[in-house]
């Protein structure tokens, strides 16, 4: 039982709608593409509508309109933000130099946060963790050496178009195969994830909808 729905009439209706839509999606397996495509449009529409609702209800009104009404002229940062939004909306009619300002700020800050975080949070700590060090248990030490070796080979696998000798070529080929093996493993994980999703839907149809096996 997924537990999203209670026992009232509205919950019952929601269960039926969810069940019918699940059947429509599963019908795609039988080649029924028209209803399947329609359900995809419905999902996209629902997400867009929900996003609009979220934007108005949880962002624009409580974080922009209400503070502006309460704080008035004192909230300079909000007025500045509002001006940038207005410039973005008016981009087709304002000079390109002006229109580029808010977009540049958005892209630049997004890239700065993502890149900075990736270096501080992933690259440096993972580089440190990939260095093989002598640990308490020999197995752990060996695992560290293997991890460092595999990391090195995979990095070599990204060498393209650079003149290099036979040993480096062999190592790069091994790195590429290790990369392929890693991707194969990842696809296996993906299969398990999707399989569990399918089983959850089957369980929903049988248990929540038809009441079998409750």
């Amino acid at each position, binding site marked *: *039982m*997924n*537990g*999203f729905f*209670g026992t009232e009439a509205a919950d019952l209706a929601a269960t039926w709608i969810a069940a019918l839509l699940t059947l429509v999606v*599963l019908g795609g*397996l*039988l*080649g029924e593409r028209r209803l399947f495509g329609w359900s995809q449009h419905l999902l996209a529409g629902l*997400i867009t509508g*929900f*996003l609009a609702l*979220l*934007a108005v209800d*949880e*962002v624009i009104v*409580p*974080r922009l309109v*209400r503070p502006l009404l309460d704080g008035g002229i004192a909230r300079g940062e909000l007025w500045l933000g509002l001006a940038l939004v207005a410039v973005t909306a008016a981009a087709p009619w304002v000079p390109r130099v002006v229109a580029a300002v808010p977009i540049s700020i958005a892209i630049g*800050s*997004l890239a700065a*946060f*993502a890149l900075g*975080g*990736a270096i*501080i*949070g*992933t690259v440096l*700590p*993972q580089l*440190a*963790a990939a260095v093989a060090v002598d640990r308490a248990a020999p197995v752990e030490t060996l695992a560290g050496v293997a991890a460092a070796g595999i990391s090195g080979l995979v990095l070599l696998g990204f060498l393209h178009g650079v003149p290099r000798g036979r040993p480096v070529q062999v190592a790069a080929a091994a790195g590429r195969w290790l990369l392929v093996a*890693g991707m194969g*493993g*990842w696809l296996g*994980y*993906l*299969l*398990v*994830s999707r*399989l*569990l*999703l*399918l*089983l*959850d*839907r*089957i*369980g929903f*149809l*049988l*248990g929540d909808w038809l009441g*079998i*096996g409750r």
Partner: protein
Amino acid sequence: MSDRWPLAARLAPVGLLALLALVTLAPTGGPLRLASGDSAAATAWTEALDALPEDPTVLVGFDPDVGTYAEVRATARAAIADLLHRDARVVLVSLTVEGRALLVAELARLARLEANPTRLLDLGYLPGAEAALVSLTRGPAVPVDAEGELARRLASEGMSSVDALLVVGGNDLGPRSWVEQVRPRVPALPLLALAPTVLLPELQPYLESGQLTALLGTPRDGAAYRASVDLGPLERMRELSEPPVAAVFVGIVAAIVALGQAWARRLAARLRETGRDGADGS
């Protein structure tokens, strides 16, 4: 044979669905349970929660995606119920639209199950992706209409009132984003992550390097945790359905068969081509 084959290929998915449904309904028990496997991850998770102070405040980043939530749903519910059973104050926030939609549904479920509302605080949807995560570390924005001691404390003390971070992750702004954006700014806080299997390859290194305190990243780990956790009077919050292992096994076998069939077909085509080339050459 050639006329029958397309029909069989077309009906094969229906047959597979019917088989999976039958196996799902079959009684399970004994050793064939997901929770029977290795419980090291579940133990690490429980130890991380045991190490928290009395009445801790836990900030939960709730951003699973619709495509994988079915896999982590039972464990996420058990984890939140476990926190409430430990008298933790649970502060929830979403940074993605899908996460917010699922959180709204889960909060409705918690209300239906009469969870203590004074121990729950919904910070709502926080837009801004990575920038929003950074802003969280400078002090979570408490909604103006939020009431209660928990809201007042969080508003006045900010992140210093938080004792741990828990991320229910999906494909977007999941545990990796928290490791990259939040953990370097609040390194003292333990970071626990609950994620679908598909994220395991990207999260396992964080666990090994100590950037994640605990990780429940596979159905087996989740099942082991759910089997070990005692929810006391909050047992009603537990999701009772478990993924049927036999059905998972059948599904994997079917996938391998499909893969083998595709490979065999390709091999046969190549052999035919080679034979044709040989005949043309002679």
